[in-house]
């Protein structure tokens, strides 16, 4: 490795004409960290990665790599490696030639290149395919080839742009685990763009959640999941998404649809709020508030109940959907610690 790979974005703005793709993005990535950029399409996560790679230039702000301002350097001057969403394998070269290409650009000798290529290929288990061309590989093998080409040079930064999105579901799971192991082994800083929260949750040490050109929240995946700091993050993270119900804090109670749902944290003044409850935190049992089962979605190992709570839709995730049928009357409760409160006006989280 050529360096530790510490990244800092300082107030990075990217304008496309009058449209602000990034509105002042700031974050830091520690050496060796697996950092995910998560967000829906068009949220600016890919733009951020491209600016980090040096493929796009920011309109304003600075990019610092290992205490050195690299804003003005383009991709070939920065010591970064990247796996593209489309893999961007060179179709006229064999797998071996593809992997060797970045080393050749470093003017390494043939004798040096050969073992490095072999090792990189072995790490991603394509060493038996070195003489094939990309067109003769399956999607998964192409993806590994792209990975090998990125790791062979031991760059400071390892950038991945939705690398799993073109794989089928089963292969995606396998590769996901392998990717994490690979990054640990190499000890390299990895920046990973994805719109799939599950990937970000499982892979990342920390992640940044992007919305409309801004970072909404940065933190460890578990923390972001447990304490989303805005309504938008709360609605984006988690599947099925968090129930978000208009409500009020009144007399020490969280009131939804005219009736108390649970006790409110102490010391909060009365006001309008958005109440967030994860479907998994909705307990369906004999006591509590009455709700009607609109629809049972059976997922096999779990089930989702679409409920109506005095007119307000709310979902519950339960382990077994069999006891329930459409139209059943049930009672639900939510533990106070499972209630997320957001200010209806500022859309920010209300801390107890």
């Amino acid at each position, binding site marked *: 490795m050529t360096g530790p790979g510490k990244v800092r974005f300082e107030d990075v703005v990217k304008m496309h004409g009058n449209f602000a793709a990034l509105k002042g993005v700031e974050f830091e990535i520690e050496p060796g960290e697996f950092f995910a950029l998560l967000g829906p399409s068009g949220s600016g996560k890919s733009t951020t990665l491209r600016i980090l790679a040096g493929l796009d*230039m920011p*309109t*304003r*702000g*600075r990019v610092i790599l290992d205490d050195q301002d690299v*804003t*003005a350097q*383009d991709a070939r001057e920065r010591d970064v490696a990247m796996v593209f969403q489309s893999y961007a394998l060179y179709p006229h070269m064999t797998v071996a030639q593809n992997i060797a290409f970045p080393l050749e650009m470093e003017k390494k000798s043939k004798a040096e290149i050969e073992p490095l290529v072999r090792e990189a290929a072995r790490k991603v288990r394509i060493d038996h395919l070195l003489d094939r061309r990309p067109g003769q590989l399956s999607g998964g093998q192409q993806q590994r080839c792209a990975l090998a080409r990125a790791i062979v040079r031991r760059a400071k930064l390892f950038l991945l742009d939705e690398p799993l999105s073109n794989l089928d579901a089963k292969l995606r799971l396998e590769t996901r685990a392998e990717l994490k192991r690979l990054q640990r082994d190499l000890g390299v800083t990895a920046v990973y763009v994805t719109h799939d929260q599950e990937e970000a949750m499982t892979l990342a040490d920390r992640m940044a959640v992007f919305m409309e050109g801004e970072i909404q929240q940065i933190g460890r995946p578990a923390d972001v999941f447990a304490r989303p700091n805005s309504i938008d993050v709360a609605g984006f993270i988690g599947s099925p998404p968090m129930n978000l119900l208009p409500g009020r804090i009144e007399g020490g109670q969280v009131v939804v649809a005219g009736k108390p749902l649970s006790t409110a944290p102490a010391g909060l003044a009365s006001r309008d709020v958005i109440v967030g409850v994860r479907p998994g935190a909705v307990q369906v049992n004999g006591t509590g508030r009455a709700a009607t089962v609109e629809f049972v979605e059976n997922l096999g190992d779990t089930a989702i109940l679409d409920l109506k709570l005095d007119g307000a839709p709310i979902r519950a995730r339960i382990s077994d959907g069999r006891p329930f049928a459409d139209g059943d009357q049930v009672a639900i409760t939510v533990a106070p610690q499972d209630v997320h409160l957001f200010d209806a006006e500022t859309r920010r989280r209300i801390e107890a």
Partner: protein
Amino acid sequence: MSLAEPVAAPSGAALSPAASGHLDVMARRERRFAAALLAPAFIALGATTTFPLLYLIWTSTFRMDLAMPFMDGFVGIENYRQLFADPRFWQSLSVSMIYTVTTVIAQVILGLALALLVMNMKRGQGLFRFIAILPVVLSPAVVGMVWRSFMLTPEFGVIDYLSISAGLGSQNWLGDPFMALVSVIVIHTWQWTPFAFMVLLASLASLPDDIYEAAKIDRAGPWQRFWRITLPLLRPAIVMVVIMRTMVALTAFAAIFTVTGGGPGTATEILNLYAYRKSFTELSIGYGSALAVALLVVTILISAVLFLIRRAK
């Protein structure tokens, strides 16, 4: 956005000087690379097209006779005035129009008919595609020579033989003004119909099958399917063929030159050929230049009309 901007610009400005400087440097590097790649092409195109065009317009304002150089001199728009009063110009223009309109229409109708015919063939499509290549890759000069000699020569050519066999007698195909014009039109159509055929066949093949199935379910007959579905969908391809073939027909040269040389008299002398003959046979370069400019103007006018048709709808 330029580098000359003072470095101490207010930091609150939308663009900090440092960052915009990077963008500027990048853009300039990109521009310089592009310029280096494009320069040879633009120099070559300038030298072989734009410069000759300007020179052509310049010479068209001169009297320039290679046979009588002592008369040469600047005459302003005299050549153009002469041109408007020149019956041979108007005749060549009308021959051009007849030649262009008939050949283009014939190519499109025959090409479309053939494409529809071949499209429905289960076998033998490959043979058609193969044969269609032959005429279009040949030199029009060679095509003209073959037709003139082996097809149309009286009492020797195959067409004449067929005519005699059919009891119509031997004809002087290229000696009669009307027959000569028909002949050059037929030859051009023969050579270029395969072009229309290939383009329209490719376009037909790209039409999705399911819309025809949907039309059948909507109970459209074959005739209705052709008029209501095939033709509107082929319209862009047909318009493209018309535009391209019109441009070629207006500047057709080799085949007519080889077959009739513009004759008999001026019966097959299209404007393009007239400009050539005036310049290089009669050696009146100045007047020939004016004719060439007139041809350019006609070409631009016609293509403008065709492009408007293409835009419409």
